[in-house]
């Protein structure tokens, strides 16, 4: 014979009865046990006191009205919260018992533990949301497919046009090099030859002065053409051609200092060469590099202060430093010094094409070496280093 009192108290589900005003008037032992409390502790509380905050809101906005209008609700997911804060996911059914005039007598709620099921349902919802997002993304991708194809084709066309333009530029560059190398240099060589012949003839004072001037101009022009040729080759990715062979580097450096001392008679150049013997390098190119550096130092350095040229050699490295005093090079200029056609605005008279430092840097690189600049209030220093092998 079933014991109904025992069935109520120890049923495999929770029972709650609420008075018309929502106050708990009866709760079974099963539910109290789940919440870690005693039945009598639950009496006098309201149902929503057992819910977490979202549950309270949801209950008040949905299930309480539903219960009033429909007289029942089924399978509502809620989280109960016990006095010790433990959370109990449940599914709840509720039904109102009404008086003959429709008023509420009391409300009965049945609660089933639903932790696993709620977790599973949450996973289903998450999976559905993920699928929805993926579907929306796919739709969006499909919608924009045509536009993206059109953009892709346009980009491709542009690239091809860019390639064509680049080929055209390369063709022009080669033409330019040819013009420089032959069409300009050849007539210049004829002029130089003519000057040589004329200088051996008897001359008036005036003719001698003019011939000297013309000779300097052709030297200068030939230097500029050489620089342009070097640039064109570097731009074509070929770098500066060097021809390294055992060289009396000390002799080369002394020659450069001598030339520039002659060109700048009033200036104090202080050479210091701790370097002996043969060094494998392209003497002409190294002379060009040092001449550029020294020329710059004399042009831009403080006129009343000495310019130092220091060369040292170790077992595996040659280091040549040119240093002058005077205004330091500002950082924003320093960053661009080695770019072609770069000229630091200011100062006077004969400025070249702005290729000197660029070509010097390329010469250093062609020797497997490096060219670096340091500049501060004390001095400005260009330092060329080059490894020696074997």
């Amino acid at each position, binding site marked *: 014979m079933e014991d109904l009192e025992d069935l109520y108290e120890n049923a495999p589900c929770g029972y709650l009865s609420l008075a018309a005003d929502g106050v708990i008037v009866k709760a079974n032992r099963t539910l109290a046990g789940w919440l870690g409390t005693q039945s009598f502790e639950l009496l006098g509380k309201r149902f929503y006191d057992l819910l977490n905050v*979202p549950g309270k*809101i949801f209950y008040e906005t949905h299930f*309480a009205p539903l219960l009033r*209008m*429909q*007289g029942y609700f089924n*399978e509502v*997911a809620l989280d109960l919260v016990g006095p010790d804060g433990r959370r109990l996911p449940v599914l709840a059914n509720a039904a109102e018992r009404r008086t003959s005039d429709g008023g509420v007598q009391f409300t009965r709620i049945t609660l089933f533990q639903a932790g696993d099921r*709620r977790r599973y*349902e949450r996973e289903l919802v998450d999976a559905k949301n993920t699928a929805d997002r993926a579907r929306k993304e796919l739709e969006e991708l499909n919608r924009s497919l045509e536009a993206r194809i059109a953009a892709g084709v346009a980009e491709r066309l542009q690239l091809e046009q860019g390639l064509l333009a680049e080929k055209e530029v390369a063709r022009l560059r080669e033409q330019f090099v040819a013009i420089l190398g032959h069409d300009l240099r050849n007539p210049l060589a004829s002029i130089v030859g003519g000057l040589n012949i004329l200088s051996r003839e008897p001359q008036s004072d005036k003719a001698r002065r003019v011939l000297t001037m013309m000779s300097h101009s052709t030297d200068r022009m030939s230097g500029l053409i050489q620089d342009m040729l070097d640039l064109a080759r570097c731009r074509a990715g070929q770098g500066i051609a060097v021809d390294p062979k055992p060289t009396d580097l000390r002799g080369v450096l002394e020659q450069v200092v001598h030339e520039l001392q002659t060109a700048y008679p009033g200036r104090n150049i202080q050479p210091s060469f701790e370097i002996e013997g043969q060094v494998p390098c392209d003497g002409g190119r190294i002379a060009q590099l040092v001449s550029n550096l020294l020329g710059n130092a004399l042009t831009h350095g403080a006129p009343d202060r000495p310019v130092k040229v220091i060369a040292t050699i170790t077992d595996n490295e040659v280091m040549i430093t040119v240093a002058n005093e005077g205004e330091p090079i500002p950082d924003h200029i320093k960053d661009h010094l080695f770019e072609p056609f770069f000229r630091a605005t200011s100062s006077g008279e004969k400025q070249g094409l702005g290729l000197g430092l660029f070509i010097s840097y390329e010469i250093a690189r062609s020797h497997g070496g490096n060219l670096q600049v340091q500049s501060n209030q004390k001095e400005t220093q260009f330092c060329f280093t080059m490894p020696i092998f074997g």
Partner: protein
Amino acid sequence: MSVSARNNVTVRGDGQRAMMFAHGFGCDQNMWRHVTPTFEQDYKIVLFDHVGCGKSDLGAYDHVKYSTLSGYAADVVEIGQALDIKGGVFVGHSVSAMIGILASIQAPDLFSELVLIGPSPRYINDEGYEGGFTREEIEELLEFLDDNHLGWSAAMGPVIMGNPDRPELSEELVNSFCRTDPDIAKAFARVTFLSDNRSDLERCQARALVIQCRQDVIAQQGVGEYVRDHLPKGEMVVIDATGHCPNLSAPAQVISAIKAFV
């Protein structure tokens, strides 16, 4: 799509003056059924469902328009203008109390009196303001809505349990009262619980009555007092009812409060 079909507008009653009822979050116009019959003799009763709820046209749901309460208020104004309402009474429950205030600011001629049941201009606590909830709790609520997708469809499914006291309710209720697209329900919850319309209160020129339940966990008495104090013509009556839906749990008290006011 006419406004009337979009918002499932129903009009009944014999009176001249209009009395419009607006349901809150989680319900539809059925929630007014214990309140409206009393007024049918003297008023023209206007009921409707917010777009996304009840039997409204779900296809008209516009995520941008309805991301603020003024979108919902614009619908109230449209309904009022379509019915040529002037100087009517607006009765709004929960979030619709604020929607009514916004509608009355948008179109001051529409309603001369507002009845606000359980209003709250902001649910989240702020400095010097006790809305009742923290932002975390509201975020948790929005997540919790997901948990009841499945529970919901089961609860609202076609299985109709015995409902001997009120057979007239079952079919209609089960199919409409809680039929809400879960995404829309979530968006409506978001706009309801994350809005802050405190600064709009002082711009409302209509006479307004706050009906406050003594025990309402969603809109506590302090919030009702705040609304009354910040409305230029606000008054408040506290009724002895529990919960957030006195129109269902204590309709007689709601009716007498409205009658005393209008």
